[in-house]
């Protein structure tokens, strides 16, 4: 157990903690956090544990929290019968496209605004930042119109993931993250490459990108998580069941009357991938939120 004397942050100093009543207060806060943590973890844990119950146990009243029956084979069976492999594949295809658009379009915009600074770039940056302040709901119908019938060229993007890819390429937040990060790269690196005859795009690919790995990881994790949970636009744009993503399928299952035990397993499938990403990249994700929020 760690000693109070190691305490280096917070309102209560290690000096305070020598007093008895401050210690009691500290453990009260500890208990509060323990309770809140339990509340936060209980629902996903409940889904996890319920996934292995059989239907009979599921329908018992009162419900059991800790399962009495254990059927891992059910999970595999539901994976096959509900065709989750297809939905996983679709979601991954959508996520990869979004990731490419997100990194290249927003990254290049950040690069030009931060480094090349052509005439009008600062005005452009301002216009981009404004879009973060504007409520998005007003664009719902016009965007749908755009996706079913693109102006002048008249083609439809229904039943493709292109709308979601395009939307990922117009992310003001990521432009800001990239721009702010590129600002911190020393000018001398870029100048040296330029004197060696490197082109603008060459500098982006060979100097800026390799130096931006931390921000790339943050943006990539957020982009992938965002795609995984994206529901509204895929739900509107994808009409073919074979192309559905995981989140959309989850929503549609509710109205098609699946038994609760199968539903639990579907929920498990939708939580598992982002949970694994979080467990492995926790540090980057929490760092990423911090980076973004303070400035936004």
């Amino acid at each position, binding site marked *: 157990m760690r000693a109070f004397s190691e305490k280096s942050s917070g*309102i209560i100093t290690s000096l305070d903690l020598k007093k008895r009543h401050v210690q009691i207060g500290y453990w009260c806060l500890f208990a509060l956090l323990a309770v809140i943590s339990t509340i936060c973890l209980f629902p996903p844990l409940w889904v996890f544990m319920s996934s292995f119950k059989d239907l009979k146990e599921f329908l018992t009243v009162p419900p059991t929290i800790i399962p009495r029956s254990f059927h891992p084979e059910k999970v595999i069976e539901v994976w096959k019968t509900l065709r989750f492999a297809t939905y996983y594949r679709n979601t991954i295809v959508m996520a990869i496209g979004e990731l490419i658009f997100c990194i290249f379009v927003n990254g290049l915009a950040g690069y030009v605004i931060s480094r090349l600074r052509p005439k009008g770039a600062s005005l452009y940056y301002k216009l981009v930042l404004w879009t973060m302040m504007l409520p998005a709901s007003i664009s719902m119908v016009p965007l749908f119109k755009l996706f079913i019938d693109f102006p002048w060229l008249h083609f439809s993007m229904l039943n493709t993931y292109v709308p979601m890819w395009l939307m990922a390429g117009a992310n003001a937040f990521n432009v800001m993250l990239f721009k702010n990060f590129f600002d911190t790269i020393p000018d001398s690196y870029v100048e040296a490459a330029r004197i060696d005859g490197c082109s603008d795009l060459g500098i982006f690919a060979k100097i800026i990108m390799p130096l931006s790995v931390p921000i790339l990881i943050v943006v990539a994790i957020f982009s992938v998580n965002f795609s995984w949970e994206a529901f509204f636009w895929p739900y509107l744009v994808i009409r073919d069941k074979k192309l559905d993503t995981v989140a959309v399928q989850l929503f549609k299952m509710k109205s098609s009357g699946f038994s609760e035990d199968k539903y639990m397993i579907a929920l498990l499938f939708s939580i598992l991938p982002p949970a694994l990403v979080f467990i492995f990249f926790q540090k980057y994700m929490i760092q990423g939120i911090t980076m973004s929020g303070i400035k936004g």
Partner: protein
Amino acid sequence: MKPTRRIAVKPAAGAPRERTNRWLNAFTRNGKAWMIVLPSVLLFYFIMWRPIAEGVFLSFFKLENYQAAGFVGFQNYREVLSDTLFLGALKNTFGYVFWSLLISFLPPIIIAVALNEMVHLKGLFKFSIYFPVIVPTVAAALIWYFLYLPGDGGILNMLRHSIGLKNSEWLQNPILTIPLIITSMTWRGCGTSMVLYLAALQGVNQELYEASTIDGAGFFLKLRYITFPHLSPIILLLLVRQIVGIFQVMVEPMTMTGGGPNNASLSLNLQGYNYAFVYFQPERALALNVITFVILLGITVFYFRLDKKLSI
């Protein structure tokens, strides 16, 4: 860090030819840079700016197949405002904001302050409290839908039994439905705000706390005079973000209740969605969304004026 790329051009004031060269140089340099940023410009134009302008413009038209078919003035607005559901949806939306301020606003601040004090298990607590954030929105709404199941099969009803209470109708109770939806959203959204507050707390100069401890200040005095002033700008920012975000709530009621029972959880945006994609009256959806847009723009502008005053 200004660009210093004019090495090649001699500073010859009088020579017109070299001046043209310099102009040409600058022109092509700007042009090249704009070529690189072109995909972003196009996407922002088509995805962000154009739809807003088009949304406002088309709200004054009758639509046929999403194409403008005849100017109707404020007709769509009149239809939306006289819809019997409008007042209810407006009231519910303010209800969502009210309950969210009551339920979701303080917990992340309290949790962040408490977490910042921890010497023991800090990492585990942070992990647990952030975990709901990574649960997809629809999945989170559905998990809570199952927890809130009425009847004897619901987990929360079972907990009520164990302390000797009768079954609750949960989401089916029109008075409870909004606060319960907000509770589930708080569960999911708390982690993000908590991390932001925590980052701000870590920016407080530790010597201030130490000095005031020596001066004999207790926990609450330090909280009031050191911690709170440091947090206030971010509290204001997150408050406005929360109001603007909750005002546009849609997916959660859509998933958990579908707007029911008896439209008790119908929000303005859900009504907009219904107009556009259930009743196929996109012009009404547009008019309704313009109304929401104006209300939210007002809140945002108010925030910026307040923020300017605060920073002075």
